[in-house]
């Protein structure tokens, strides 16, 4: 593989790497016929991101050495990021950037041609890897929001930097509401500041969702994509479904597209009921009592519905085309009684080293750890998990 990036596109590439670095520790670089793909997934596999740079993005793009199969590789995000660390420098001094992947030297070579004839060559060690591919389909999501990234970027600006999750929903009068998410822990009363931004629907290029719909997702990753999209002056589409189903954040222009798939909180977002009335959340226990008996609550406990299924096998087109939902029947527990959920949770609490209970994550790990939930054995996700180390 060999590609050459020139001028302002070097910074665009750098920006993309910066936003990917907010998600994962490893970068999957895959030269495809329709462009260079950069992908990453976070360690808990609740967030996946991919950028695809079209061949036209490059001055020169060669997916594979003629007569050879294209190589793909996995490198440490940190080492790739260090090449593009200073965006100011990229803009000011770098004239072109040449990336080449050569099987013989087993190095990913990134060359920066800078002002004054200075040339930086980074020979990065890499690992062979399987293709990283999340199974997602924006078309299957019933709801869609589309707005200029700048609008959304300004909307998330007031949220505290330490805030983990944010709730996005449609409120009264079809206003789009972004609200800081409160954890339902006992001490949440102490840090009881809720920040809420409300944006009129006329600011959106597209708004396909009814009032009361809401999802909660991680803010850090969202900010990462927003800062990229803002700098490229693009619109951001948010495709989403019921709480617990992954939300897909997409950007696209003629030279590149980007997709971030983020897990959303699986409980029915309490805020969704509140969106009409900007009042503080109801006390937590009450909410849980309401939420447990809902029939679809347990369905969302199924691993594939809220976790992104990673496909690891290269050639198996069958599983790639398989919609993620189709795995559910097999994985679904025989009955979704309240008792069983308690049991699952009890089991979870006995597992040593399980992260502290945050609904979002505990459900996530619970699905992996509690055997009752995966009678069919390892899902594609688990397979990748076990071999994806090192």
């Amino acid at each position, binding site marked *: 593989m060999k590609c050459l990036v020139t001028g302002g596109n070097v910074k665009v590439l750098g920006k993309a790497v910066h936003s990917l670095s907010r998600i994962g520790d490893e970068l999957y670089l895959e030269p495809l016929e329709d462009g260079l793909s950069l992908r990453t997934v976070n360690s808990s596999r609740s967030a996946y991101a991919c950028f695809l740079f079209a061949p036209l993005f490059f001055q020169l793009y060669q997916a594979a050495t003629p007569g050879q199969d294209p190589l793909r590789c996995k*490198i*440490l995000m*940190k*080492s790739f990021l*260090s090449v593009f*660390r*200073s965006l100011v*420098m990229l803009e000011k*001094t770098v004239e072109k950037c040449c990336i080449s992947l050569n099987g013989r030297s087993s*190095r*990913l070579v990134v060359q920066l041609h800078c002002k*004054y*004839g*200075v*040339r*930086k*060559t*980074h*020979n*990065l*060690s890499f690992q062979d890897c399987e293709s990283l591919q999340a199974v997602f389909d924006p078309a299957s999501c019933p709801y869609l929001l589309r707005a200029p990234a700048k609008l959304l970027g300004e909307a998330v600006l007031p949220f505290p930097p330490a805030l983990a999750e944010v709730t996005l929903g449609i409120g009264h009068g079809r206003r789009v509401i972004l609200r800081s998410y409160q954890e339902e822990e006992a001490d949440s009363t102490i840090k009881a500041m809720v920040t809420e931004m409300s944006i009129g629907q006329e600011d959106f290029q597209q708004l396909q969702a009814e009032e009361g719909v809401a999802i909660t997702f991680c803010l850090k990753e969202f900010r990462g994509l927003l800062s990229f999209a803002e700098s490229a002056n693009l619109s951001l589409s948010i495709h989403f479904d019921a709480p617990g189903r992954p939300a897909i954040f997409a950007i696209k222009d003629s030279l590149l597209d980007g997709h971030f798939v983020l897990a959303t909180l699986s409980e029915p977002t309490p805020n969704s009921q509140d969106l009409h009335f900007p009042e503080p959340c109801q006390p937590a226990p009450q909410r849980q009592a309401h939420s447990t008996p809902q029939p679809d609550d347990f369905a969302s406990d199924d691993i594939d519905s809220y976790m992104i299924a990673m496909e690891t096998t290269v050639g198996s087109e069958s599983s790639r085309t398989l919609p993620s939902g189709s795995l559910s029947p097999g994985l679904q527990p025989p009955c979704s009684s309240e008792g069983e959920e308690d049991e699952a949770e009890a089991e979870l609490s006995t597992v040593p080293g399980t992260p502290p209970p945050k609904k979002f994550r505990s459900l996530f790990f619970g699905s992996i750890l509690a055997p009752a939930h995966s009678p069919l054995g390892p899902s594609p996700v688990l397979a990748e998990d076990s071999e994806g180390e090192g």
Partner: protein
Amino acid sequence: MPLVGQRVPDDGGCSLVASLDNVRNLSTVLKAIHFRDHATCFATKNGIKVTVENAKCVQANAFIQAGIFQEFKVQEEPVTFRINLTVLLDCLSIFGSSPTPGNLTALRMCYQGYGCPLMLFLEEGGVVTVCKINTQEPEETLDFDFCSTNVINKIILQSEGLREAFSELDMTSEVLQITMSPEKPYFRLSTFGNAGSSHLDYPKDSDLMESFNCNETQVNRYKISLLKPSTKALVLSCKVSIRTDNRGFLSLQYMIRNEDGQICFVEYYCCPDEEVPDSES
């Protein structure tokens, strides 16, 4: 003069007296070599040389020539003492280290001789601070015996071109390898870190290159941890001269222009790390 009327000890008993209208002209240069706590000072009638060393492998010298000072007197030559540089710098910036326009800190410095403290009188806006810093037994400093007649390769670069390179050095690499050659790659900085190797090449006809004088190919390695502190001098300087001698010793000379447009020099010497294996990329 701002210090007129202040009670300052008699010059008569001092082996070193120096005064300066803008203390930053001294503190900036001292910061460029501040990578260890202690420094040895030598004063002659030409000026003051301050030396900092580490690991018996690297030495940094700052030269503040007599002309930088408004007043500079040395009674007996040479005046030598060791001092805590961190404390000295703290005292020199006692009125704040960032410049406030139109508000200069003036300095008068006295050293009465062996065993006496270094006295600093700092004045800003009519406020005077007196600092006494204990001096210590001077230590013998290293003699790198770096003689210009033994210099094999010499390059003068605009500091701008190296600044970024040094600030972004891959610190997971143990060494910085410097290649100087009359042929390609002319001047190359290489690191070999966890993530892989990287090379930074400067062509000899680059606009950053003020002079290029390389006679034979030399590839030497220096401990990156020893060279990294020279970034402080690099950041302040406008030009840097890079020289290696026949033993592979490295000399880095930084030209620093102070706020009054005067030139000072800071110099780093470093010994090479080890013999370089022949087949190295």
